[in-house]
């Protein structure tokens, strides 16, 4: 057994190609942050709240929300956890577009205008930026999001060629943040629609060479609330913070349904 992909030993010393500023530079700037608040314990109406904040170089929208919560108004409520775009907690509408607050750098936004932040659309708002995620996860659970196989399990791993592994690579990146589903105009008007995230996760298994339940998932998605509701507006692909080509995945599922012709 020989080692593979051996790279040449790198040089012990090199001339550095470094732009020099990197993480050291700290510029500050002022922003206006506008957040649509909703606190059903005090009022059935939502309203806009705004703060003027001084922020710094690499700060993200999440940092601005934290600054408000920690220094101005502790009642401002939003979900967050990892703060670097992999847990999927903080999808929200920022300047009218679905993004993760922890992945949106303030300096990349137009700071001459207020930055608006609202809860994602199409799911019931519970408080401020928090929505009820249950309907979203319900759709996810319905597409059988797990590997289905039959027969005896092998003693070792199932083999899968690199090519077969590559086919569904893109859709394994999903973090279930709901940015795609809650950016979909069809989902806004029809909450029964499975939505892009559920279809992405179905795709991940339908195109996995090890899986044997592709036909069942295709049948589920051939439903009137399934893939055919997709109007190819590409909102989902633009919204995905993981860069998944969501619309392409949906199209591949549509083609697979046609190819199997139920």
């Amino acid at each position: 057994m020989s080692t593979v992909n051996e790279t040449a030993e790198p040089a012990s010393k090199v001339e550095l190609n470094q732009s020099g500023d990197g993480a050291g530079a700290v510029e500050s700037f002022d922003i206006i942050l506008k957040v649509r608040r909703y606190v059903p314990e005090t009022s059935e109406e939502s309203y806009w709240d705004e703060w003027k904040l001084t922020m710094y170089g690499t700060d993200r929208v999440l940092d601005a929300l934290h600054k408000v919560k920690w220094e101005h108004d502790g009642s401002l409520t939003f979900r967050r956890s990892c703060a670097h775009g992999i847990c999927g907690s903080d999808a929200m509408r920022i300047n009218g577009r679905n993004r993760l607050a922890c992945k949106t750098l303030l300096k990349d936004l137009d700071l001459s205008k207020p930055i608006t932040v609202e809860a994602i659309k199409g799911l019931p708002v519970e408080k401020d930026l928090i929505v009820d995620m249950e309907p979203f996860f319900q759709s996810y659970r319905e597409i059988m999001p797990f590997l289905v196989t039959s027969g005896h399990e092998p003693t070792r791993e199932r083999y899968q060629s690199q090519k077969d592994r590559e086919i569904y690579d893109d859709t394994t990146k999903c973090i279930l943040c709901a940015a795609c589903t809650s950016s979909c105009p069809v989902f806004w008007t029809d909450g029964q629609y499975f939505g892009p995230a559920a279809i992405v996760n179905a795709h991940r298994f339908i195109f996995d060479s090890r899986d044997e339940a592709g036909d069942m998932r295709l049948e589920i998605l051939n439903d009137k609330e399934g893939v055919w509701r997709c109007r190819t507006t590409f909102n989902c692909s633009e919204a995905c913070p993981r860069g998944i080509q969501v619309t392409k995945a949906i199209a591949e599922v549509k083609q697979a349904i046609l190819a199997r012709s139920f």
Partner: protein
Amino acid sequence: MQVHKYDVVIVGAGGAGMRAAIESGQRARTAVLTKIYPTRSHTGAAQGGMCAALANVEEDNWEWHTFDTIKGGDYLVDQDAAEVMAKEAIDAVLDLEKMGLPFNRTPEGKIDQRRFGGHTRDHGKAPVRRACYAADRTGHMILQTLYQNCVKHNVEFYNEFYALDLLLVDEDATREDGSSYTQKRVAGVVSYELATGEIHVFQAKSVVFATGGAGKVFKTTSNAHTLTGDGMAIAYRAGLPLEDMEFVQFHPTGLAGLGILLSEAARGEGGILRNADGERFMERYAPTIKDLAPRDIVARSMAEEVRQGRGCGPNKDYVLLDLTHLEPAHIDAKLPDITEFARTYLGVEPYTEPVPVFPTCHYFMGGIPTTVKGEVLQDNDTIVPGLFAAGEVACVSVHGSNRLGTNSLLDINVFGRRAGIFAAEYAHDAEFVELPENGEARVVEQIESLRSATGTEKVAALRSRLQEVMDADMQVFRTEESIRRALAEIEDLRERYLNISVQDKGKRFNLDLLEGMELGYLLDIAEAMTLAALGRKESRGGHYREDYPDRDDANFMAHTMIYRDETAEMEGVKGIRFETKPVVVTRYQPMERKY
């Protein structure tokens, strides 16, 4: 208040909690309480891989893996536990593959493997390809796969339920030698429902704690905001010991200034560290395996380079991770996420520019002491029947004083599985322990007094002060002076904590209130850490004392056990008792740790 009854209650839905739930859920009536949605758990942030001696790409065996784990942990590892982990690693990886995990593959279609820090061929001769991986999102794929299998097996989740207390009942008991002692038994868990503010008491025959670590005691950390040491602090307050709390791992390659993790896989795939002179400085600190030395050594070497003025950037306060000699296609295939982090957060293009990095608080080697079955210990040898812990919250101890990269994903799978099986088996034969009268009273009192408090101190201000102090004085270099400075500050913050108030007085989704509770946990953990660090007057693994730079096996080859005890006092702090626990040594006698 609501009362629920389950055979097994698992607290936490990261890798360890869900791996336990998959086992327990198929054997006993099981509920999982989790303060965030399962797929938000920080297991998903793990990147590089999960080691197992599959020998898919080169010769390897679990005995070498055991040795590396023990040496990596600077001989504070319980060797029987390390052996269990390295042996069961192989099935743990194969189980995940069978559950559907999309591992990267070799040209023959087997699970591919790559190099990782401290994992070597034949007891340190050269780096070995042992880490099974899915690009640089292995943790993400593990978390997703485990959640998918929980869905498959209809595991019952209570999402956004915070565990706030552990209900233990004391019984008088007699040992075999006739001496009497107090036996603790688990009765259940008190929980707070985020959506409503309602208290729920979960009565259970078995309780599994899988709540993760406490990285948020530091300012610079790879950890999520939610990692506030809840499980450790709750157990500690309930009278259980915490083991080896002085040992915290600083991951060498956090994005400078931000702490966001860049996987060791970057070095496993050929990336190297350079100082301001462009020098590959790890050649001086670890001549054999260089940049792939264990994390404690690399992190200290980086900090040393910066101290000696060879740091980079305008403030000379970081070093560089150089990937520029790697093919962009190779980077895209193996390290797509972390290179995107560098682009997104620092605006650096890793194809052509080295990435600014500095050590970031990453992992707690210590935690709630357990046996290899995941049973929680109430002292050095007595288990608490029905109480289990697994994952970062636990200390088995397989990581000793320094965890090797990838061994945490392994730990959660091996010991999560074990805890799930043994918790269900215990519940099968056991009776419910009667809930203590008004068992929820302590939590209700805490919550209501915090909600109605009118004090002048702010949670966020105290927390950020704590984090600054810990970064300054409890990081990779420690001295008696720095630790005492941190301890004094922590004691001051604990006083000020009594005078906090929160602004949100509501019941619905009151995260303001819960941040107040979490700060209480952080302060308890920080105090335990500093006291344990004061007690260990030697340098070992992640705990480096400049005033005691050598390992001292004669005096300190033992685990630290810290207890809350009203009758005791340690280093001027009332209510803390300090003890030690022997290290289990099977076949590897301590040697000098060189790489």
